[in-house]
């Protein structure tokens, strides 16, 4: 047993302080107001304080911290992207993730499991090779492997997929692919930001943003008006409710993304398995549950309702891939919101409105970008200039016709 647990056994009172506070009321003015208390928003607050000494910051969250995409995703972290810009960005995220438990002194259960993207056709294998080559060029550990290697590493897999689907031709194998405790990422950032003096206001909703001469001057909330010259919108699936407040148009459309968990099982799957053709990704959590998801719901919807056809589909594909799972039971399903972009890359950085910064377009890839997006957005806010890593993701790329095409690496939600 680690010695760190001893204190709990030998203290009469629970020896832990609050991780974060609940300030009674809003101040009249903040240097920065961050809309959205998920990993991205809290993380931006954390790095603003840590790296730039900007601590007069309010994080405004209409629900509870980590309650949006942060707490609803399937917690997969990887950097095997297709474009130079994307792969570099997500690789920087992985590097931050790897050290985050230590930095927070909070165990995020950041666990490198190895990540397979199965290819069921020669065309799919080509895309995987493209990703592998770009990755290797950037020093990211990715390799295309053949079916027998897939079988060796995940022996439970049925390479023939039940015989009625295209068999597995190979896979992109990405050993650093990891899972993490998603909630804890938000809590860690919240604790760090809170300790530095950032205020976290939960159950507070932004109702409007005040603009004068193309510049932000304040934020209206259901608990009163706040003066501020800098606002960061980090609300992912709710972005389309915020951007009209500043008159900004974006390519975002919102789709639900659903997921399921099974009952807890003794460990048998220690890898992360993804199949773009089957629209499936699955891993087994430290609690023993299989956590699985599939592609986005097929039409726009800003609602976290569940559907039966989703669960039928994801179960069917799980059984196609792992025939032994027929007896295993799905325990619960849920949904999150994904703000999708046409090129499957995020929208980050400065906007045409002075003092309004956007961190959106997180589609299905927001969790894995949490540390790096927080860090680069903090830099962008502090210096009022897009951080070098996120320059390609500026909203203006669409009118400049310079899209960052990540569809080949991000079209399945994980």
């Amino acid at each position, binding site marked *: 047993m680690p010695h760190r647990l001893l204190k709990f056994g030998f203290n009469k009172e629970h020896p832990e302080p609050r991780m974060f506070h609940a300030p009674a009321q809003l101040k009249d003015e903040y240097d920065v107001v961050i809309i959205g208390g998920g990993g991205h928003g809290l993380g931006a607050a954390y790095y603003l304080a840590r790296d730039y000494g900007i601590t007069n910051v309010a994080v405004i969250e209409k629900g509870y911290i980590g309650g949006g995409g942060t707490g609803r995703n399937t917690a997969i972290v990887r950097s095997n992207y297709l474009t130079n810009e994307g792969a570099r960005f997500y690789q920087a995220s992985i590097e931050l993730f790897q050290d985050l438990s230590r930095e927070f002194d909070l165990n995020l259960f950041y666990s490198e499991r190895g990540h397979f993207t199965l290819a069921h056709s020669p065309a799919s294998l080509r895309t995987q090779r493209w990703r592998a080559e770009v990755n290797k060029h950037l020093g990211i550990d990715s390799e295309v492997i053949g079916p027998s290697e897939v079988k060796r590493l995940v022996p439970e897999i049925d390479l023939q997929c039940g015989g009625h689907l295209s068999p597995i031709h190979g896979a992109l194998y990405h050993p650093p692919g990891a899972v993490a405790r998603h909630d804890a990422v938000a809590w860690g950032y919240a604790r760090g930001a809170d300790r530095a003096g950032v205020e976290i206001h939960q159950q507070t909703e932004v109702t409007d943003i005040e603009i004068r001469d193309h510049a932000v001057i304040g934020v209206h909330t259901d608990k009163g008006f706040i003066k501020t010259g800098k606002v960061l919108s980090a609300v992912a699936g709710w972005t389309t409710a915020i951007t009209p407040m500043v008159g900004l148009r*974006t390519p*975002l459309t919102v789709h639900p993304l659903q997921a399921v968990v099974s009952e807890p099982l003794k460990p048998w799957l220690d890898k992360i398995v993804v199949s773009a053709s089957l629209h499936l990704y699955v891993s087994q959590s430290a609690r023993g549950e299989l956590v699985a998801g599939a592609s986005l719901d*097929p039409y*726009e919807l*800003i609602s976290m*309702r569940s*559907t*039966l056809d989703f669960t039928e589909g994801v179960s069917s594909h799980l059984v196609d891939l792992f025939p032994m799972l027929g007896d295993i039971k799905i325990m619960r399903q849920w949904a999150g919101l994904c703000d999708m972009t046409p090129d499957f890359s995020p929208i980050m950085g400065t906007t045409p409105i002075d003092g309004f910064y956007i961190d959106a377009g997180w589609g299905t890839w927001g969790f894995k970008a949490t540390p790096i997006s927080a860090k680069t957005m903090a830099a962008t806010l502090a210096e009022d200039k897009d951080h070098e890593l996120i320059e390609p993701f500026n909203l203006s790329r*669409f009118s400049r016709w310079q899209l960052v095409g990540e569809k080949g690496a991000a079209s399945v939600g994980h």
Partner: protein
Amino acid sequence: MKIIHCPINGPRPLQEFHFGGQVREMPVGSQVSDAEWADYVFNRSGEPGIQREWWYHTASGTWFIAERDCQSDEFIRTYLYGGRESDA
């Protein structure tokens, strides 16, 4: 599963349909700037609330318009493009 009222085929489950995106007015290319054209090509409304959308009943090949609240998922009404309307 949602029921969608196809103006031709009547109420059918969602799985019989294909979503065709928001209804958008295409500007005349020669009359708009590059930026305005890019706005048309890429930007979407996406706001919570009622939006007009294209839906397609696959088996019969019927395109029609639905007015739908994209937050409550309620279909307000459906009708053929430029044609007759029917309550959802």
